[in-house]
């Protein structure tokens, strides 16, 4: 998402201004506004963190352009003003963030292999949730609004945990191959696994090996006492079929034939159309976000 932000600049700016107008007009709604401001502030800070890691140069460039905008912001947000430079140009609204999480959830659910980890999204959503929950603790019991907020939190939490769980399931299923892939990635490339998932995979591998040894292998003849995990555990089957919906038009996607008699041919994927085809053919498109698995 970092590459695409210059376009969203003005939208974010307007959005922020709207927020500020709401902030100025109310004293009865003060507590709601405080919540809203806290939410905005949280988005700003979490994105600063992720972007600092990744694109320091671009950040500073746009920072100066947007500093002028941020200076017009109200006092309530002044301490976040230097962060807003980031917010204005690359941040999604919380609603977009949730939509991204749902996309990631479905893609992860339906793709045969482990996809790139979206720890940025996960972290942001987690912070949103914690923050909203903290705010809710201050609200008295039996408030209608609070119950609606709580329901929304539960729904988001469900998606989030389902997403993380399906990743863990895949790691359990294909752990030696995932670790192997992680080892062979080029220096500096981001890992497919989050640090926690990496620790989990490592531990799972160690535990499986210990278990096999303790239960069976040590009773075997010496020449049979080793197991090659890479051969013992199935690889993700990239040739499985998947259902997908096209989000950005793609041309000339090569479809490999099923049988030797058939010829290979190309198809164009129109925006909004739905297809059934092999995962291997469109795997790069899933990674780039051009198609959505359904």
């Amino acid at each position, binding site marked *: 998402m970092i590459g695409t932000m210059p376009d969203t600049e003005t939208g974010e700016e307007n959005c922020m201004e709207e927020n500020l107008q709401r902030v100025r007009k109310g004293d009865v709604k003060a507590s709601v506004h405080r919540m809203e401001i806290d939410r905005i502030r949280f988005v700003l800070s979490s994105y600063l963190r992720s972007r600092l890691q990744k694109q320091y140069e671009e950040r500073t460039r746009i920072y100066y352009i947007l500093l002028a905008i941020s200076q017009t912001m109200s006092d309530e947000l002044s301490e976040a003003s230097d962060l807003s430079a980031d917010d204005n140009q690359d941040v999604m609204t919380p609603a977009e963030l949730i939509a991204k999480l749902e996309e990631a959830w479905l893609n992860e659910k339906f793709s045969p292999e482990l996809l790139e980890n979206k720890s940025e999204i996960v972290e942001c959503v987690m912070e949103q949730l914690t923050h909203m929950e903290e705010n809710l603790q201050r609200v008295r019991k039996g408030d209608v609004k609070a119950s*609606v907020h709580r329901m*929304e939190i539960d729904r988001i939490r469900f998606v989030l945990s389902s997403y993380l769980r399906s990743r863990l399931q895949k790691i359990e299923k294909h752990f030696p191959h995932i670790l192997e892939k992680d080892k062979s990635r080029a220096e500096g490339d981001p890992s497919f696994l989050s640090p926690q998932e990496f620790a989990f995979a490592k531990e799972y591998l160690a535990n499986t090996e210990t278990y096999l040894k303790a239960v069976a292998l040590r009773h075997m003849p010496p020449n049979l006492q080793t197991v090659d995990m890479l051969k013992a555990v199935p690889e993700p089957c990239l*040739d499985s079929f998947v259902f997908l919906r096209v989000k950005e038009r793609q041309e000339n996607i090569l479809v490999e034939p099923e049988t030797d008699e058939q010829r290979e041919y190309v198809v164009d994927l129109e925006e909004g159309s739905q297809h059934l085809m092999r995962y291997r053919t469109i795997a790069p498109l899933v990674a780039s976000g051009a198609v959505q698995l359904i």
Partner: protein
Amino acid sequence: MDPSEVEFLSEKEIVTIIPNFSLDKIYLIGGDLGPFNPGLPVEVPVWLALNLKQRQKCRIVPPDWMDVVKLEEIRDQERKEETFAPIPSPYYMELTKLLLNHASDNIPKADEIRTLVKDIWDTRVAKLRLSADSFISLQEAHAKLDNLTLMEINTTRMFLLDSLNYMYKLRTNMHPGSDAARSQDY
């Protein structure tokens, strides 16, 4: 994917409700809702509409397409055409089910609508089975599935994808030594 998860996704669709209470704007993470005033229609996600309905705090306005005349048209077109006809909502089945189960008193001719939607569903699923059958027997490698809804895909997903995978495995194993056969080795 579990059908309940498809239903979960359908619950974020927007419906109009007429509340009987008043409440300020709510600033949810997923967007702002309200303000709520008694008697004034307001748009909310289905999950909230159903919750308010269960607490008898609102009346749900059925979506435009949930109407006997419109559904009859759709049913007739669906029966006439060989391909999947466009459908008014990507979650028509789930929404019908949810709304009719929880708010049937707000929907005129609820029983007729239930039957019509079931008819449309049956017609479409029959088409889906037919095309899945020809997809497999012709050994195609690509299919276009426009207008198919998530719930429909979901009814056939496990069966279709698993059988395709097994057939692929059997076919590639006929040429031992090929790379694909090895990766299928389980």
